[in-house]
């Protein structure tokens, strides 16, 4: 095997891997972006993601329809989001503390109900083969793309447009940036935040179902490994912009695909180190994009981390 083909294989594997691995990041970060735009932070999305993975897998196993599983995972996620949104509106309740509690609650509940689904195999989501034009088996394999990824891309563009061009978008940004201004406009702040957190939970649930129903494609307790939390860092890195969320998710996906891609051409040295790439990337991004000397640019003014 020559160096050129080796490099080609790694790049193709990373490209395919980036698309696969980025999809849950994309959904969770879009959800977190929506929530944070309303002025609250939901750290519980990690729990929502894991519960979405479990419930989606379970429903797909019982009904035989993976898409129904995706929907149920979204609905379960929105229930978690709604609970977070409701609890945070109570007086003297801190959204970050509630988020951590919801994270533990979500994962705990998923592990409790999920014990029965570790063994059985459920129908998985189909992929679209977009590589039919090529003879190269590597390219054809790399272009096996899940519809959820395309849906996520479309959603990022839609959200980017809607934040600027719709009444709901302006109301959401107003609520997240200045609660007094929102009150003066007669906006029900708690309702906006409840809905935004619920929608955010819905997206995180879908992100979770992708994990168990497509890639890696089965339900295990170590499935998420902190992706819901990394999405919070990703949203900060993406400066609360849906389009940047997409690029950041792709970057995280590529970092996550690095280890397996290198292994596919037989480089297994430092496999665990390369698998840790997304975590190292998170750390680096947080160091580079924050500083004690300045506040975060573009951050919604009502966020408790920026106040």
């Amino acid at each position, binding site marked *: 095997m020559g160096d050129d083909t080796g490099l080609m294989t790694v790049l193709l594997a990373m490209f395919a891997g980036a698309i696969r691995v980025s999809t849950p990041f994309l959904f969770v970060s879009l959800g977190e972006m929506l929530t944070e735009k309303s002025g609250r932070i939901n750290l519980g999305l990690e729990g929502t993601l894991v519960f979405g993975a479990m419930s989606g897998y379970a429903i797909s196993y019982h009904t035989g329809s993976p898409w129904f599983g995706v929907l149920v995972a979204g609905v379960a996620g929105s229930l978690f989001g709604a609970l977070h949104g409701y609890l945070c509106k109570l007086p003297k309740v801190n959204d970050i503390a509630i988020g951590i509690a919801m994270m533990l609650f979500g994962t705990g509940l998923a592990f409790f109900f999920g014990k029965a689904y570790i063994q059985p195999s459920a129908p998985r989501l189909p992929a679209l083969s977009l590589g039919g034009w090529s003879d190269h088996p590597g390219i054809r394999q790399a272009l096996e793309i899940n519809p959820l990824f395309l849906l996520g891309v479309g959603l990022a563009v839609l959200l980017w447009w809607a934040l600027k061009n*719709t009444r709901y978008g302006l109301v959401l940004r107003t609520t997240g940036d200045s609660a007094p201004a929102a009150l003066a*406009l007669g906006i029900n702040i708690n309702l906006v935040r409840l809905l935004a957190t619920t929608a955010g939970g819905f997206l995180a649930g879908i992100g979770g179902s992708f994990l168990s129903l497509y890639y890696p494609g089965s339900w295990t307790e170590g499935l998420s490994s902190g992706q819901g939390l990394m999405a919070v860092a990703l949203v900060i890195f993406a400066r609360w912009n849906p389009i940047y969320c997409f690029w950041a998710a792709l970057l995280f996906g590529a970092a996550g695909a690095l280890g397996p891609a290198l292994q596919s051409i037989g480089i297994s040295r430092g496999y665990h180190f390369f698998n840790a790439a997304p975590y190292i990337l998170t750390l680096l991004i947080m160091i580079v994009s924050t500083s004690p*000397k300045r*506040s975060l640019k573009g951050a919604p003014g009502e966020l408790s981390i920026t106040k």
Partner: protein
Amino acid sequence: MTSLAHQQTAPSRAVGIETLGMTKVFGSLTALDDVSIRVAPGSFHALLGENGAGKSTLVKCVMGFYQPTRGTLLVNGNEETVASPRAAHSLGIGMVYQHFTLVPSLTAAENLVISRADAPQVIDWQKERQALSDFLQTTPFRVPLDVPVSSLSAGEKQKLEILKQLYLDQRFLILDEPTSVLTPDEADEVLGLVQDMTKAGDLTVLMITHKFREVTSYADEVTVLRQGKMIGGGKVGEISVADMSTMMIGETQIRERAARSQTSKKTLKLELAGLFAENNEEAPAIEAISLKVHKGEILGIAGVSGNGQSELIEVLSGQRIPSDGRIFVDKKPYEPTRQHMDQFKVFGFSEEPLRNAAVPRMSVAENMAFRTFDKSPISPFKGWLSPPPMRERARELISAYRVKTPTPDEPIENLSGGNVQRAILARELSGTVDILIVANPCFGLDFASVAEIRAQIMDQRNKGAAVLLVSEDLDEILELSDTVAVMSEGRITYSSPIAETDRATVGHAMAGQHA
């Protein structure tokens, strides 16, 4: 629509209101006591009074934030009950608040469109922009529409706040201290434009203020409130400023202005040499600040808020690391550490002491011991605290500075604003003070406290302290300073001995005109 209804009842577009025996009782406190005022359509009415005089209560009753305990409100001669701010808006009554209610990250155009109750679900920006520029043609105000509000100047924001009310077709505007964050020139521009609109009969204005200059230059009529009661009022021009002032303050004993004693010899005390620092956005906040303060001198730094004053104060008090430059005290290098502050006797206080200079939930005694808790007698040996001497010391200070507190153990947040500031003053000024750094010391305080605090600052100067006073209140600067400097966009743009300058020159320099 609403404007049509008004045109039927009033000859002009402006709305007039009248309150009859307006009274508001909160528990045992009568915040507003039988106040009747008449604001004719197309007039510019000023509402004068100290903090807590009932001005806000009155306008909140008009706006529907509060329901009056007794009394009626007439709008264009018809009796109305205003249940909520929304109801007030539908009567054409709008309010511009002291703090901006614009959304910082939205553009001016977005702010205007979203303020409309009937904002469309999907916004056709081309159409909206056309409508907005057509609307702007009908008003004298000019504001850039397409940049985020956070990058507008204070004057532009205030214009946009007024524009927003006009855009919503509110033809009775309540302005709550509209010029408190503006330069004198910006204030004149905004109030002048508003005055033109009232003269043309397009608008009625009720302005809350405590600046006599604005009353005499712009208002037609004035009403003075004190302790919830209407004390007097009438046509501007028929009442002298002295009368208005007496009506506002009443019989309160005000401490005499401390006399400025002459200092003959100039000894350099504090020197800032080329200080640079960045703000939280990592943009330059202060640039090349070089200042000298001598013994027995008050150097007053005037400027509109947000021109780097708070960053300068933070650098001097050790809360912000300068990116370049040095500080010298007695020609020796000075770092704002606890050790150096103690060694060089550097003290200071600032606005909103509960936020900037006190720990709200700690007791008055503990707060008063911040400078001394690690020294004998409060700390008999290293690392130990002895509460009885601390309480004893606090008791002395409380009586010497007349801090009204039930006990020294009361959490300081339970004290009134004036008393918190006096407690901090007691902590900072009771020893020997060589250097005093003061920022907006009288912000939000009542007349008696203001006079007292200014007198204390002057006392320290007379005793030989070098005082650096940063204030957004130009009158305070002009009253206290020996030397006036102006800070604009992070630089010192003007500096002069007080005898060789005047209000207008300083005001122009504040607006960034280097004259």
